[in-house]
């Protein structure tokens, strides 16, 4: 009996359901407090990219998007928010790395991985695409070229 109920509950997962961004405050690289729920409540599409300075595929993905970011923004007004999950061992490398690479993204610091945990992310990189506060797409891992697929998704959800 109990099992059936649980099964039904789990079955209903397969119906599409939109998940929301938690109500959390994170600090941006320049020390400002940003509520991630508030910034995701917008008509324009936001991408949260969870990364870390020691994660090579993360850097590759952010580098790859960086090359086409201007074009993306011109055409879709999309904004990428790179959420650094670096802990205090590597956190100090975030600012020089972001500047050294010339990335134009908004950078948020998820110091003790509260945001990452709230979204149940276990593998980096992890991309979350949000519109009007709701998650419309998420993906873990990066392979060269998957930024093109991401752009398709953005364009299809404008």
């Amino acid at each position, binding site marked *: 009996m109990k099992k059936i109920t649980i099964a039904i509950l789990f079955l209903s997962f397969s119906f599409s*359901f939109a998940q929301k961004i938690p109500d959390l405050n994170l600090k941006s690289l320049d020390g400002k407090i940003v509520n991630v729920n508030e910034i995701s409540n917008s008509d324009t599409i936001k991408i949260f990219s969870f990364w870390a300075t020691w994660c090579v595929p993360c850097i590759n993905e952010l580098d790859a998007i960086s090359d086409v970011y201007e074009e993306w923004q011109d055409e879709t007004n999309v904004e990428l928010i790179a959420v650094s999950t670096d802990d205090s061992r590597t956190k100090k490398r975030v600012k020089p790395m972001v500047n050294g690479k010339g990335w134009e993204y908004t950078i948020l610091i998820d110091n003790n991985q509260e945001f990452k945990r709230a979204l149940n992310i276990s593998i980096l990189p992890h991309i979350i695409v949000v519109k009007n506060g709701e998650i419309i797409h998420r993906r873990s891992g990066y392979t060269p070229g998957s930024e093109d697929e991401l752009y398709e998704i953005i364009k299809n959800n404008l």
Partner: protein
Amino acid sequence: MRRHLIVLFLLVFNVNASAQLLDNLSFGLESNAIWYNDDKKTGSFYDDVNKDDDEHFRSNNYLKLDYSFFKNFKATVQFESYEPLALLNYSPNYNETNIATYSLNYKTDKLDVTAGYLYEQFGSGLILRSWEDRQLGINNALRGGKATYTPTDFLSFTALYGRHRVGFKTSEGEIFGFNSDIDLTSLFKFENSTLSLGVSYVGRKENLNIEDPVFDYLTNAFSNRLDFSYKNFYSSAEYVHKSEDAVVQILNVNNIFPDDFVKPGSALLFNTGYSKKGLGIDLTFRRMENMGFYSDREKTGNIYNENIVNYTPALTKQHDYILTNIFVYQSQPLVSFNYESNVFKVGEIGGQFDLFYKIKKDTPLGGKYGTKIAFNASYWAGLKADITQAGFETNPDYETEFLGFGAKYFSDFSLEVRKKWSSKWSTIFYYLNQYYNKEQIEAKYNAETLKNNIGVIESTFKFAKNKSLRLEAQKLWSNSEDHDWIGGTLEFNLSSKFSFYVNDSYNSGIDHDTSKIHYYNFGGSFTKGATRLGINYGRQRGGLLCVGGVCRIVSPSTGLSVNLTMSF
């Protein structure tokens, strides 16, 4: 009948309410399973943690559910299952299927209250950090309560109490914490600069049955922090003081708490940097003396990283390639007198330097896409001290020099150049030079100091939409006859969903653990959205697995592993 009604009700309720109900539910599943083989080269399967050679199949499974309700509440529960036993080298305390952590959180603009298992970090974590890292088997969540009050933009206060999670049990010792952060920037409305202060207190109380103890069962630690930035320049400093406590020395079973070996601890962390578009410079210095801090004293320095109160990671660059991770520095926060190997440590001192630079597009060196350069160097030594060894009637003791550099433990420098040649082809060049004082770091008598040079070339070719090939060639040259490694990786991304790889590393040196053995791995992964399935077969080298500057010892093993992660 009644049951059927309930089902019907649930069905209807489900259809109507599921959208809203499930909107508020999120879950994450992670499952790591390995079938361990016997291996002719590296030996038969044996689990020396659980003294078992029978259960070749192992799995670690995590299911976390979060449910938000009544606007301000969130309930979280995490189930964990280690069946029939945990993966090799995990703590024997991970030994069943059960609820591992649970919590209830209430949150408004100003107040954030959690009851149950909680995660927290004060400042850089040098005084307190509780977090989860499944790869390392770390979950030192505190079971208790926490409240954070943020009356204004620039003030925040946190108070907490709890006992550490240790497997499916909790620590004997209790942790009390208080933290306050003050952001003077918004208070004084600075234009070009920021200034913030932080003050923390952490108390650890562990009662012991010792007659006339010469130390308090309550140990107090204080941290003061300052963060400052002006335009492109930034800097921060932290000083931690830990009150006198027994120095835990595992000399023999009866001598965990030597009579008069009672010392305070301290740490100083300083960081400064400058960055602007295309350039970043960063310098970090840290000095630690007797900074081991555990909820249960006798767990000091335990290899499973259990009962850790504070976070003292190695401040060196985390390198990305297999051969660059054979000799990894581990931070040395503890007082550790090892008479057998004649190694006496009271802490560490040193620092690291980072430089990031982008050579502009359309310049001779920059080419069409620009060239990205990263340089890192680090130097770590033991904290200089006058050591008094335990004698017939003398207790062990030491006197430190505040900024004295003792024996050199470790140094490295690395240069990374990332070059994109065309929209289809990019290359990374990586060079690393390292110095590893094995005798001191691992407390192994007369062990040889290793001086290695490592070179890596990585190239990625994109040959169709979403199809790419990645190649890695690595070589390690050493001063030691024991080590002479080559390695390589071939990765083929068929689409954004399917990826396959094969890698191998091989030591033609004479090191008796690893000599003439191919450490090969091959596998593939399937990714769709937030679901990822990975399969790997191969042979792992024994050694250290490090994430975020914390390491776990892993024994050599061969087997088939399957990893599944999902989140909604």
